């Protein structure tokens, strides 16, 4: 049900409420679109991102990536858990935007689920390889780098594409649907010890922005989960092939309430194998 902005803040008799401005989230800050454009969503003027905003977001994501990946897995887990804490505390902001209470709760729990994976995924997805020779040989997963995401519109869907990407050390540029919910989530992220630039959120029209992200030479992977048109998805896949980006293809009817499994994480991981001789 669409809501008009006037019902979001309950009115005090005799007092005019102060409304929130919905801006982009890039590099830990909340800038307006460099284009100066906005579009009207449920009565709010929301920033309409341009390709240059997307370019800036990729720069921010790239700048943040080595340090985020270099943080200990334990530390990344702590940060994701902190996001869960902050989201829990702001549940009412999401229900006020029309997100069902159960979905907000599921989104909190989804952060907790991924927080726990930070220091375990390598133990499940990596390990010692018994090669035939006097060699130490071990494989371990590493993040692929910067991931561009076209997100689904629900809060749970949005969290379910961001969390598995960043928990392993990737950084993301997210083309969000449902802009008010997405930017409210950005406000959660901005107060959760998450380093600026790890998650960058753009609001606007993915058909305009996603091709620039899919063809960007400094993006390592694209997640097309939120692309709802098969032809557009194919076009984006084709663009991503230019630098052989890893592609998560859209699956129709994803049940975001189910156990996500490992695939959302492993799709955005590289496996590195190290050999070393053994001998006195």
């Amino acid at each position, binding site marked *: 049900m669409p809501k008009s902005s006037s019902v979001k803040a309950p009115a005090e008799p005799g007092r005019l409420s102060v409304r929130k401005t919905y801006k982009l989230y890039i590099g830990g800050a909340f800038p307006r679109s460099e284009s100066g454009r906005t579009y009207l969503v449920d009565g709010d003027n929301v920033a309409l991102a341009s390709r240059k905003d997307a370019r800036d977001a990729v720069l921010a994501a790239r700048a943040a990536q080595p340090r985020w990946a270099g943080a200990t*897995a*334990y530390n990344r*887990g*702590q940060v994701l*858990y902190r996001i869960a804490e902050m989201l829990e505390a702001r549940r009412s902001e999401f229900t006020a935007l029309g997100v069902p209470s159960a979905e907000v709760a599921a989104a909190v*729990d989804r952060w*907790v*689920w991924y*927080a*726990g*994976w*930070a*220091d*375990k995924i390598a*133990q*499940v997805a990596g390990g010692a390889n018994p090669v035939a020779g*006097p060699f*130490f040989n071990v494989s371990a997963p590493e993040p692929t780098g910067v991931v561009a995401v076209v997100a689904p519109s629900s809060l749970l869907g949005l969290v379910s594409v961001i969390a598995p990407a960043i928990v392993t050390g990737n950084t993301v540029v997210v083309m969000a649907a449902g802009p008010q919910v997405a930017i409210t989530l950005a406000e959660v992220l901005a107060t959760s010890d998450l380093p600026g630039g790890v998650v960058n959120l753009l609001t606007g029209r993915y058909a305009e922005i996603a091709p620039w992200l899919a063809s960007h030479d400094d993006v390592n992977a694209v997640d097309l989960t939120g692309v709802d048109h098969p032809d557009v998805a194919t076009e984006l896949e084709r663009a991503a092939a230019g630098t052989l980006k890893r592609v998560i293809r859209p699956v129709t009817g994803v049940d975001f309430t189910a156990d996500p499994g*490992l695939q959302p994480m492993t799709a955005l991981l590289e496996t590195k194998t190290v050999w*070393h*001789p*053994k*001998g*006195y």
Partner: protein
Amino acid sequence: MFEYAPAPESRSVVDVAGSYGLFIDGAFDSGKDGNVLKTVNPATEEVLAEVAVAGPEDVDRAVAAALRAFGPWSALPGAERAKYLFRIARIIQERSRELAVLESLDNGKPIRESRDVDLPLVAAHFFYYAGWADKLAYAGFGPDPKPLGVAGQVIPWNFPLLMLAWKIAPALATGNTVVLKPAETTPLSALFFADVCRQAELPPGVVNIVTGARDTSAYLIQHPDVSKVAFTGSTPVGREIARSLAGTGKRLTLELGGKAANIVFDDAPIDQTVEGIVNGIFFNQGHVCCAGSRLLVQESFADELLASLKRRMATLRVGDPLDKNTDIGAINSAAQLARITELSEIGAAEGAERWSPECSLPDRGYWFAPTIFTGVTQAHRIAREEVFGPVLSVLTFRTPEEAVAKANNTPYGLSAGVWTEKGSRILAVADKLRAGVVWANTFNKFDPASPFGGYKESGYGREGGRHGLEAYLA
């Protein structure tokens, strides 16, 4: 000389009551028989508190509470159990200074270690296993692994709260409930942990703490409703437990003694090696089952290394555990001090050369100066028996093969160290060592993600990491 003025950590962050009861079914009570034991501050011999001694009826009640709690707890979705454990982890983080001071008071370990090592590891351990609670299907133990029931857990005095974390966190994450008995000389932090459980609103009966001595432990582990026993302590007691549980079908894991070889080759990075040797044997007063208590140094390098080691030992600061600059605190008990003293006297009598730096020890309390014995051979008792104190035996070797042979020439097999700049040598030596943990160019490193446990008479089963789940799953 640049003398450091006293820098005591404030005791006021912790409020120690005069007496403590047992924590059964979510509440404290004083125990059926009213027997108590006194726990003392080993640095001052001051009595800190009286603690109830759990008799058979008390243990029965605790096990019954754990059994009642087991059904609903194991039936909870993993994600909900996870959130309880995350809460506990967070509360421990928030109360970590208080718990660190308490641990130093009751145990005698320096505040620097309880603050910078024990407490961060305790919180991290709960965080780590919290995350497993809803991921057990991914852990490699089958698609739907099941908990065992009530776990009876007995822990030692050297890392009271950390050993509690190693026991309780995986047990709860996997859906078991526990009755835990802390050590006789260090019961307090476990009782404070009980309060943490209440703060976290953990359902009553999921964690029960029974204090007491050996009789309490023996009764607990024999209890017919205890399905799983986890013990950390000495090898003789572990052996006795294994014998006593034969035929009961109870699952058992044992983390026992050690006599770790710390092997130093002549190309080792000398200054960091000296730090590693010091950390290996003097960390926590040497009250560490995986302590690097046998230094095996390549003969061609021995004089240079020992000169550096002695110079470094002269800067170790022994004294008040609550002083933030103390490196070595108090020996945990009079009994342990007597054991260390006796073995050291035997070492000297057997002909090894004993050396300690100049070091003034406080008048009251239990203290032992950091000590090394040189000229030790495999035949000396100090090279074979676990001293569990700040006493290092130094032996030499000529070739890697000899080093490995000497390192393995012990009934123990908990840990070992290897120091060399040559990577292939590290890996080859590590392959041949019969020890559950091998540290290379480092020592005494612990992480919740990393499994820990011994070969041979150092026990069986692993704690920590993905492997640590296995002991609590059917």
